[in-house]
């Protein structure tokens, strides 16, 4: 299995996503938000999923938690979660989305932190109330116990005077604090996997740094695996061990972070990297951007979805056949005809 080589260390990844397809069936047609994404999250490591907005990375996260809302649906693929080494791994994709099994996993074994610190909390309840709730959902502890745990968590994520803050309402906290609280809530049941969806997008630069540090140090302490979703290569560089690059719902390239940054194979990845401001670049040199913009999901181009924007597209090939994710080096994979020939028949 391909992913093996990627995380060479041999011990099986906690989470493996294979050929995940999540589509939205709207009146105006089907939107293939995620269309055959595959990757895996090794224990104690950080996987970064990167891509422009609308590339399907967030839906991937929701799919893993099985909280994709109508009219969206997982149509294909598997999401394998390995619990304690002896236990039988479960395929989340097969579970009943409303069922108890998956609910136990949500927030319990897989926790989510996402980009909207402003609105991710209900303004009607104190943060304490909302964290305590999570704890008591997954663990059989009393109110007082849960409350102490919450205060501990808050302290852990660096909230000053947690015993007072716990009774405050979300809108009384700054964005940074709120994100910390968010993380605290995510950690409240010490999950195996933490999915962080654009955890820092809404924050100012200094706070961003703090939050990222926090995440790293927590991971170091708890040895959980983190899936960090972002459009910001900077964040990836800082956080990720492995990187998955997504475009229009597909994984176009994947590999260890330094491979991706120094030996990117896919034209899209290269383009992405080029668009990061570099201190080595000549002053006032214009920042290169990716030509064109993401096509509307309804009319996704035939063949390689990226070919309309691709500088190196090969007509008759890229616009007919759909490239598959294939190994391009020992630890790196890409889906591009620059590195392999299309299968016989054009696949759509």
């Amino acid at each position, binding site marked *: 299995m391909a992913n093996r080589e990627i995380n060479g260390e041999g011990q099986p990844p906690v989470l493996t996503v294979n050929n995940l397809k999540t589509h939205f069936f709207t009146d105006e047609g089907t939107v293939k938000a995620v269309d055959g994404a595959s990757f895996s999250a090794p224990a104690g490591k950080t996987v970064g999923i990167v891509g422009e907005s609308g590339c399907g990375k967030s839906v991937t996260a929701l799919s893993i938690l099985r909280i994709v809302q109508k009219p969206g649906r997982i149509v294909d693929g598997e999401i394998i979660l390995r619990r304690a080494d002896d236990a039988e791994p479960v395929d989340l994709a097969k579970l009943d989305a409303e069922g108890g099994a998956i609910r136990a996993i*949500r927030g319990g074994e897989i926790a989510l932190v996402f980009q909207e610190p402003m609105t*991710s909390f*209900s303004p009607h309840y104190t943060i304490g109330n909302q964290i305590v709730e999570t704890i008591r959902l997954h663990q059989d502890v009393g109110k007082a116990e849960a409350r102490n745990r919450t205060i501990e968590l808050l302290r852990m994520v660096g909230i000053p005077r947690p015993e007072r803050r716990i009774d405050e309402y979300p809108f009384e906290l700054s964005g940074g604090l709120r994100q910390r609280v968010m993380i605290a809530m995510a950690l409240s049941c010490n999950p195996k996997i933490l999915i962080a969806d654009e955890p820092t997008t809404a924050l100012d630069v200094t706070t961003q740094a703090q939050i990222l540090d926090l995440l790293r140090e927590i991971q170091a302490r708890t040895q959980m695996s983190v899936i960090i979703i972002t459009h910001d290569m900077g964040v990836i560089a800082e956080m990720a061990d492995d990187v998955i690059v997504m475009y229009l719902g597909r994984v176009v390239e994947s590999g260890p972070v330094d491979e991706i940054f120094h030996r990117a194979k896919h034209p899209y990845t290269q383009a992405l990297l080029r668009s990061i401001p570099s201190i080595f670049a000549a002053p006032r040199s214009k920042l290169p951007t990716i030509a064109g913009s993401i096509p509307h999901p309804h009319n996704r181009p035939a063949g390689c979805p990226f070919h309309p924007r691709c500088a190196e597209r090969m007509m008759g090939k890229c616009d007919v056949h759909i490239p598959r994710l294939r190994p391009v080096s020992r630890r790196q994979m890409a889906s591009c005809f620059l590195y392999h020939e299309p299968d016989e028949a054009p696949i759509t």
Partner: protein
Amino acid sequence: MLAYAIRRFLLALLTIWAISVLAFAIIQLPPGDYVTAYIAQLASSGVDVTPEFAENLRQQYGLDSPVWVQYLKWMEQISRGNFGRSLEWRAPVLDMIGDRLWLTMAVSLSAVLFTWALALPIGIYSAVRQYSIADYIFTFIGFIGLAVPSFLLALILMYVGFRYFGANIGGLFSPEYQLADWSPGKVWDLIKHLPLPAIILGMAGAAQLIRIMRANLLDELRKPYVITARAKGMSEFRLILKYPVRAALNPFVSTLGYLFPFIISGSIIVALVLSLPTIGPLLLRALVSQDMFLAGTIVLFLGIMTVIGTFISDILLMWIDPRIRFERRE
């Protein structure tokens, strides 16, 4: 917070004053006065009405002074806690309103409760399962009350009640309790008579609430905190009740103030058809007979209740919605 309350209170006073003027003006609008109305009534009940009548009566009631004088007189009386006498009933206005006010409250309250019991579940369901068949069916049930003219419904139900169930006709008490003073038995008798008006009135109001609930819930359901909650692994049912519904309830509270006059107005016709001893028919009759002090006082009362109602609902709103609480704190 306190400053806010005070400002709010002063505004309320202003509003009440305006209402009193408006109330009086409305009652004075129709041509003629109580005496013409009264004479017309006598004539139609076969009494020989001679011109002397009118003259004597006008003099008796001091109706010959101009409107604004009568208004000031009224105000001056009220300031001394005397709301005047009902010209038609020949009794102090307050005594008249007395019992009817409580019965009105009873009817309105039961109507409101029925409305909520009907509207909230339907509203929630039709938001959560938008455009499902059940959504359509429930909404339809919720709206039918709005569409059927209440006065017709009331009449039909009353006749059916008499013809096939031998129920008492109209009213809120069975004959044997009409005269009795308040007792558990009488209360029970009242309770037994409440459902019919409550249902007729409640049905009519349900649609509005369903609409509000549905709209707000649709709104709230799309908020990220719902996803956060889902990601926690809460069960959908608990989740919806604890978060979005709670948020969607605000508008209910904020409309609480208008509920009372709304129900009264809405109930007048039904109360008339069902001959309920409530404020409604009294008000209607007072208006027709241009019994100005009675009508004026009732309208004023309703106005005041609304103002108080809105005031209370504001306070409630601050209580249930922390955000507002904090805005107001600044």
